[in-house]
């Protein structure tokens, strides 16, 4: 369950207009008819919760517990209370990983969503030919494994023999050592994330675009609004909830970027010699599995979890405010 949830493919937000029966409390409830039926709901959710209790909840709660210990996975365990957290918040490497994570998140999310918005706009036209081809190829990156993707991109971004540098050389630009430089390495990782998800987000935007009634545009056109004005005054406001949703989903995914930096980092788990592309989850993995400091690694995990919860709450509040605004 935890391990197999598609990390970034959570479904979209509640659209403001359709408030119908999507909240936790439906407007009307149907009384259960029989005793058997009263028990039935539990039967339906039992398989999930049984699996979840063993393979999801327990490991998670256990991690919170481990975070309170100096815990060597193959050695002894000493209870140290919140010491791991105190050390962590004074640890330069933690803040470095935090900076990297957010930098990679911004570098991948902003261009990705702009690109997706732009492509969705292009796709949103019934007269477009090959529409299905376009939509389908955009999902190809999503089905390509991260392992394969990383091997390919690592080779494309290579300093001496990478295709991208060969291309840059054509224009007289000196080869860039993408893996060594902090900013360049963030661009490299971000590109992988962007490549993987831009098509997915394009489709989400496209769906939202198709839901905007045409008469709003017609009304705007009568008021004298041109293409650009229509885009900014009609399209963007209508898409606002979806855009916020994609930003938050990208954040939750972005906070957990792991496999790309892990594979780029090999051999070693530091994410480059200067830890220049070590993300929070890689830092957690390095401490836990590389350095046998499982308590410390768990403290990083718990912090990461807290960050994700905070962002999700912000998401919830923002989309609520926007919904009530309209």
């Amino acid at each position, binding site marked *: 369950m935890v391990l197999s949830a598609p990390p970034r493919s959570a479904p979209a937000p509640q659209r403001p207009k359709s408030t119908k029966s999507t909240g936790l409390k439906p407007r009307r409830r149907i009384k259960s008819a029989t005793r058997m039926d009263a028990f039935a709901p539990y039967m339906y959710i039992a398989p999930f919760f049984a699996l979840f209790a*063993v393979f999801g909840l327990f490991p998670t709660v256990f991690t919170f517990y481990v975070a309170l210990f100096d815990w060597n*996975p193959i050695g002894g365990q000493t209870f140290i209370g919140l010491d791991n957290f105190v*050390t962590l918040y004074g640890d*330069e490497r933690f803040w470095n990983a935090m900076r990297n994570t957010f930098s990679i998140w911004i570098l991948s999310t902003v261009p990705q969503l702009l690109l997706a918005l732009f492509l969705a706009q292009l796709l949103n036209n019934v007269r477009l030919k090959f529409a299905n081809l376009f939509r389908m190829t955009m999902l190809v990156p999503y089905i390509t494994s991260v392992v394969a993707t990383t091997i390919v991109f690592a080779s494309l971004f290579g300093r*001496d023999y990478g295709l991208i540098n060969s291309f840059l050389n054509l224009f007289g630009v000196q080869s860039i*050592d993408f*893996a060594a430089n902090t900013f360049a390495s963030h661009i490299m990782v971000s590109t992988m994330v962007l490549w993987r998800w831009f098509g997915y987000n394009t489709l989400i935007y496209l769906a939202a675009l198709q839901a905007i009634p045409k008469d709003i545009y017609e009304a705007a056109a009568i008021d004298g609004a041109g293409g650009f004005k229509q885009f900014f005054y009609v399209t963007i406001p209508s898409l606002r909830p979806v855009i916020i949703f994609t930003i938050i989903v990208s954040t939750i995914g972005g906070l957990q970027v792991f496999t790309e930096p892990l594979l780029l980092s090999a051999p070693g788990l530091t994410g480059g010699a*200067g830890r220049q592309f070590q993300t929070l989850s890689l830092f957690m993995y390095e401490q836990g599995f590389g350095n046998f400091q499982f308590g410390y690694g768990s403290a990083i995990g718990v912090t990461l979890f807290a960050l994700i919860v905070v962002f999700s709450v912000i998401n919830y509040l923002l989309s609520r405010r926007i919904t009530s605004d309209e």
Partner: protein
Amino acid sequence: MTAKKFAKSVIAGAAALALLAGCSGGGDTDGKITLDVWTFGGMGLDEAFATYQEENPNIILKVTNAGGSDEQAQALTTALAGGKGPDVAAIEVGYMSQFKAQPQNFVDLRTLGSDDIESSFLDWRWSQGVAADGSVVGIPTDVGGLAMAYRTDLFEAAGLPSDRDEVSALWPTWDDFIEVGAEYRAATGKGMIDNVNSAIFNPAVRQGSEMYYGAGGDDDLIYDSNPDVQEAFGYALEAIDSDISSRTPSWSEAWNAGMNNGDFAVLAAPAWMMTYISQQAPDTSGKWDIAAVPENAGNWGGSQLAIPAKSDHPEEAFAFIEWLMSPERQLEIFQAHGNFPSTPELYDTPDIQNFTSEFFNDAPVGPIYANSVESIEPIFEGPQQRIIDTAILNSLSQVENGEEPAADAWSNALKNVKTALGG
């Protein structure tokens, strides 16, 4: 209730909730014993395993190659943490100090008779498998040894001598080595070595009798005061300053390609690397040769074979290790794969003394490696060895890549080590 007890009871409860019954694996069939053996890539043991299997029909060897040594160490960590483990586990020397700091996870091989075979191994190599409490955690496999592999054609093109004795004579010390690199740069415009970490710091720092830990044991950290460490660090910085490196990280795609394309001309080559080079750069056969490493000694790599405490068949496992790492077997492995034996009794035999490599221009690699490993002194490696090493090497890479000024390198390195140890 202790943490461990609590964990155990919770896990037991959670496991009871599981819907499906587990099917246990690895049972013994027909009175045969299955030995679970975990290795990693490039250990060159496959033929030896096959031979053993043939000679011992009552034992089933179940060999698992975990990938690289990093993956292997992580797999072993999770296995031991979960209270499991194979019967025989290979541990790369870099990870050895971390594992032997928790000797309770392994069978003390003295109880199985390791004292009887200790004398046939190199002292310093044997000590890498001995824990602080004196228990023997792992039996040495091969020894890396160290020599400098160099490209004769590129040396000639740079106007340098290309004969192996003359090349060895060019660099009796690290200062000389760096000077040759500077000449090479002046003549060709290229870097002579692949990178300063593997070509200079790694061999240089291991040429003393102490490294990051003093004689006082696990808590006696001397990485910041040991002049040997600072000296090796200084050589690396000097090499960067003289621009003798092609800045090609080891194990990268560019590194493999660079061996073929001549992006660098010198490579610190432990014995097992000979096979690697010949596989990566088959077109350069005969263009490589082997010279001595400056200061004449060094080691890179090797591993220990350990028996996790949870093994059901420690005696059979030990008998297997004893057989596998006997001098005769090690010689066979060396002849087939280039992994150099850790048993010095072989070094004076004609098998080693007359051993040459065709790929390396018929260099007498046998005596060269024997010479390199015999002059090594045992170095005590504490539990944080690898973490300290990583922090220092990373600081050097940062300077080499132009990401940090050389002037701050040492203080940065110390700061990084401190953070890593404090965390």
